[in-house]
């Protein structure tokens, strides 16, 4: 966003990144979401990154209590919420302290000067007031009395008692939003409409917030302190109807869509855990789709309930995050042995143990692949963007049902909570799939519940209530004859173990071949990622190509089985770099498979990768430094 223009000139930008930061009570998530919506409606492409503390409301004014929301919006196709923000809005000293380091050199900094009291400075650990000691000189600092300006704007409300002081003060985020909206030439219409519907029952709140919003805009317009206003023109997006969607919401909707298209009852058994709980919240609101949600007593019961529901013929789903996934392993094994379709969602967060509950990470790939006793192969898929969670959920359900197997779906805190514009699909175009419940005996001697399909090795799914197909399932080894009866025979056990592995492997035959983004076909470096790193990797590749490097990109959504073409690709390129938010879990799997010396970019900071760090690692490799 470095520009050389005259005061108040409108500067056109291809992209801009803003971070709103403040106390947990300051409403930063809401402010960010509103600005996101304004930008979306204005036609920008965008990506967001909410970040909030693990405590519900850590003490006001402290570093632990800082909540932030970053978004990038652009006139072009973008993939990440941006690396360093161009604009930082800091509602108090703690927010400034925590986020200043991220701001671009020379970036725009808007602070609420009213919040820079000695008490707050103290709490944030400032010895001197940074607004006064010159330490912010390198930034385009706008020290605005956001709080008192808001209070002044809302005087009529506090005077006639429609609002108390606290309520009035709380509108300061709208003042800030008005100001930033003005800076970026945004219309306030969608936010005003939203306020009207949100506070409909308390018209005084609607009025006050609208007033504060406009006051913020007017403040920008009338004061001299802002030299530029910016305009980020609409992006050249594919035509269609768009909405903004987060990963967790997309996931929930994808499940509803799958149940609807397969004409099955959706059962969702789950125990709350950050960051997976929102899927439960969303689905429990969708009862009109016949969704049956069950808040279980714990994750084992949640997984167990899904197995039971699957036995009954439902599209059974459970979700959790790291610690809860660790608890589900034993019951996953039962689902695997009974060969019942269950979708198991892991919205990954920082680990190990309780770890960093509100931060993102990709470190549950290992437990998804290997976290069960015995030889226990399961398909594993991962969503690659918020809206892709819709399709990945649909796909996981399809794989589970068609192959009679539990499927693990990996999401992470980043995708779960961040949002992007989504060009809505036509639900009717979603390819329906068929649970194909057994209704008749499959041999002349009766029903054999483990008589497998020759091709897929899937077994028939007969649900209770079907006369004549009565059978018993269980976790003990079964004979290879299809009866499902217990067998302790040595060779049989080996064969069954191999069959279970093959059943998963063969799914690859029916998956599309992997896609590789390599326009020139002669890339020196293949960048491999999986799941949520898609955005950062695409951004990095864009940058690398701009710099003249021939790089290819392969983003995996199917982790087990791997798609056809994955191993070949890895073997084909001179250098391969696998980037993951863990210490190399996929990298190791691929190394064992291909025996190629795949390099890794492995960092776990609780945040998605920046394209900068990826470009750096890739460049070092390309230049032979690593």
């Amino acid at each position, binding site marked *: 966003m470095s520009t050389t223009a005259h005061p108040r000139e409108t500067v056109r930008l291809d992209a801009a990144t803003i971070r709103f930061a403040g106390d947990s009570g300051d409403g930063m998530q809401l402010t960010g979401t509103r600005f996101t*919506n304004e930008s*979306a*409606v204005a*036609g920008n492409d965008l990506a967001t990154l909410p970040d909030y503390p693990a405590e519900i409301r850590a003490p006001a004014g402290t570093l632990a209590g800082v909540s932030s929301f970053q978004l990038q919006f652009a006139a072009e196709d973008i993939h990440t919420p941006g690396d360093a923000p161009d604009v930082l809005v800091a509602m108090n000293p703690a927010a400034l302290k925590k986020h200043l380091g991220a701001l671009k050199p020379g970036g725009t900094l808007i602070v609420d000067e009213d919040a820079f009291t000695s008490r707050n400075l103290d709490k944030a650990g400032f010895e001197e007031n940074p607004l006064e000691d010159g330490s912010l000189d390198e930034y385009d600092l706008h020290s605005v009395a956001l709080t008192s300006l808001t209070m002044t704007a809302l005087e009529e409300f506090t005077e006639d008692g429609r609002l108390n002081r606290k309520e009035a003060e709380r509108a300061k985020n709208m003042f800030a939003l008005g100001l930033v909206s003005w800076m970026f030439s945004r219309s306030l219409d*969608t936010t005003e409409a939203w306020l009207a519907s949100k506070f409909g029952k308390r018209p005084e709140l609607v009025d006050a917030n609208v007033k504060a919003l406009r006051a913020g805009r007017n403040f920008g317009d009338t004061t001299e302190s802002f030299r530029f206003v910016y305009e980020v023109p609409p992006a050249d*997006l594919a035509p269609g*109807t*768009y*909405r*903004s969607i987060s990963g967790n919401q997309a996931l929930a*909707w994808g499940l*509803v*869509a799958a149940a609807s298209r397969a004409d099955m*009852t959706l*059962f969702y*058994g789950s125990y709350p855990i950050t960051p997976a709980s929102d899927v439960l919240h969303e689905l429990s609101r*969708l*009862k*009109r*789709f*016949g*969704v*049956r949600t*069950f808040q*279980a007593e*714990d994750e*084992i*019961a949640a997984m*167990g*309930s*899904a*197995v*039971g*529901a699957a*036995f009954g*013929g439902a599209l*059974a789903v459970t979700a959790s995050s790291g610690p809860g996934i660790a608890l589900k392993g*034993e*019951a996953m*094994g039962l689902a695997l042995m*009974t060969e019942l379709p269950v979708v198991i969602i892991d919205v990954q967060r920082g680990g190990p143990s309780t770890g960093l509950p509100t931060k993102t990470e990709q470190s549950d790939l290992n437990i998804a692949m290997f976290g069960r006793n015995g030889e226990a192969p399961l398909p594993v898929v991962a969503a690659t963007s918020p809206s892709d969670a819709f399709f990945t959920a649909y796909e996981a359900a399809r794989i589970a049902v068609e192959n009679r197997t539990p499927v693990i779906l990996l999401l992470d805190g980043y995708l779960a909570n961040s949002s992007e514009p989504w*060009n*809505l*699909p036509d*639900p009717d175009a979603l390819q329906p799939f068929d649970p194909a419940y057994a*209704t*008749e005996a499959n041999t002349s001697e009766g*029903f054999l519940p483990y008589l497998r399909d020759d091709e897929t090795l899937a077994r028939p799914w007969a649900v*209770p*209530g079907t006369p*004549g*197909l*009565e*059978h*018993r*399932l*269980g*976790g*003990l080894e079964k004979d290879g004859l299809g009866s499902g009866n*217990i067998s302790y025979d040595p060779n049989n056990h080996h064969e069954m173990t191999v069959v279970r592995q093959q059943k998963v492997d063969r799914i690859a035959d029916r998956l599309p071949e992997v896609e590789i983004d390599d326009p020139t076909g002669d890339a020196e470096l293949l960048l491999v990622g999986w799941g949520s790193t898609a955005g950062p990797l695409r951004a990095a590749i864009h940058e690398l190509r701009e710099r003249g490097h021939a790089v290819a990109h392969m983003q995996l959504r199917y982790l087990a089985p791997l798609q056809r073409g994955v191993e070949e690709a890895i073997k084909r390129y001179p250098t391969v770099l696998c980037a993951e938010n863990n210490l190399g879990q996929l990298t190791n799997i691929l190394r064992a498979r291909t025996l190629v010396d795949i390099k890794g970019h492995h960092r776990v900071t609780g945040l998605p990768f920046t394209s900068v760090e990826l470009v750096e690692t890739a460049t070092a490799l390309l230049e032979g430094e690593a």
Partner: protein
Amino acid sequence: MSATETELPQLTRKDFASDQEVRWCPGCGDYAILAAMQSFLADQGARPESTVFISGIGCSSRFPYYMNTYGMHTIHGRAPAIATGLAVARPDLDIFVITGDGDSLSIGGNHLIHALRRNVNLTIILFNNEIYGLTKGQYSPTSPVGTVAKSTPYGSIDQPLNPSTLALGAEATFVARTIDRDRNHLTEVLAAAHAHQGAALVEVLQNCPVFNDGAFADVTDRDTKADEGLVLVPGEPMVYGADRDRGVIAGPTGALELIRGDDVEKRSLVHDPTLDDSTRAFALSRLQRSGGPIPIGILRQVERPVYEQELLKQVERVEEREGDGELDALLTGGTTWQVD
């Protein structure tokens, strides 16, 4: 193979027996329970296709393999949770949970109490042999203090749980106890439990001749059973004893007290399992602790909304109020915008 809906022939015990060889030890109490269940289902006119047995792990949990119904031998302790999922997905089914004292009260304690408090429509049969059979004889949560078993060569020190007491603590609507050796009583209790809407817990005192032989000899042996067991009959005074000269009254502290004499029929409390308040049933469940007889029969039997029925009702109410969900409307709900 599929039965025509119009003509449902009367089934027999054999129709409920699967083709699998029964593999319990000779003399195991489980045989009697299996036989009683098979006959009971046949007599009730139950349909194999809509009957489901869900068990955990343990000797007792092999039960579903021997029933020619739908069934699942699941994992240790989790049967109530698995059955809950099935009940929510399929409230039309007739679901039994088969579990042992270790399965239900040790590893599975939490799922049991939650199934009970939710009042999921399950008939839960707890085979209490006061021992871990399948793992060859460790003490269980129902083993009395001082039990010498594989893992307690010097005697156990843990206060046991009483299944009835715990169930009542967990808001159970149906709580009963019966005995493997008393086929009639077992069948009667099964019938009542099965008829109950909601979660019914039936504890069956089950002899394990291999690892804990005679644990319930007091209430099964001819000589002692009349004095050591109190057979509960709704509407009848709580009288027991070989000479029917012993009875139960309420003491001043709420605890039950034992009386003896000719007039016990008159003085004894009349058993009423349908009391809304669970205190009396609880008091009964404590009788043994104070040296009294073991109550055999239905301790509690009350009505309360059934979990999965409430769940379905809620779904239906919402569908009625909001209309059936449409994918299109879901996706386009809220703020959308058009790019041309």
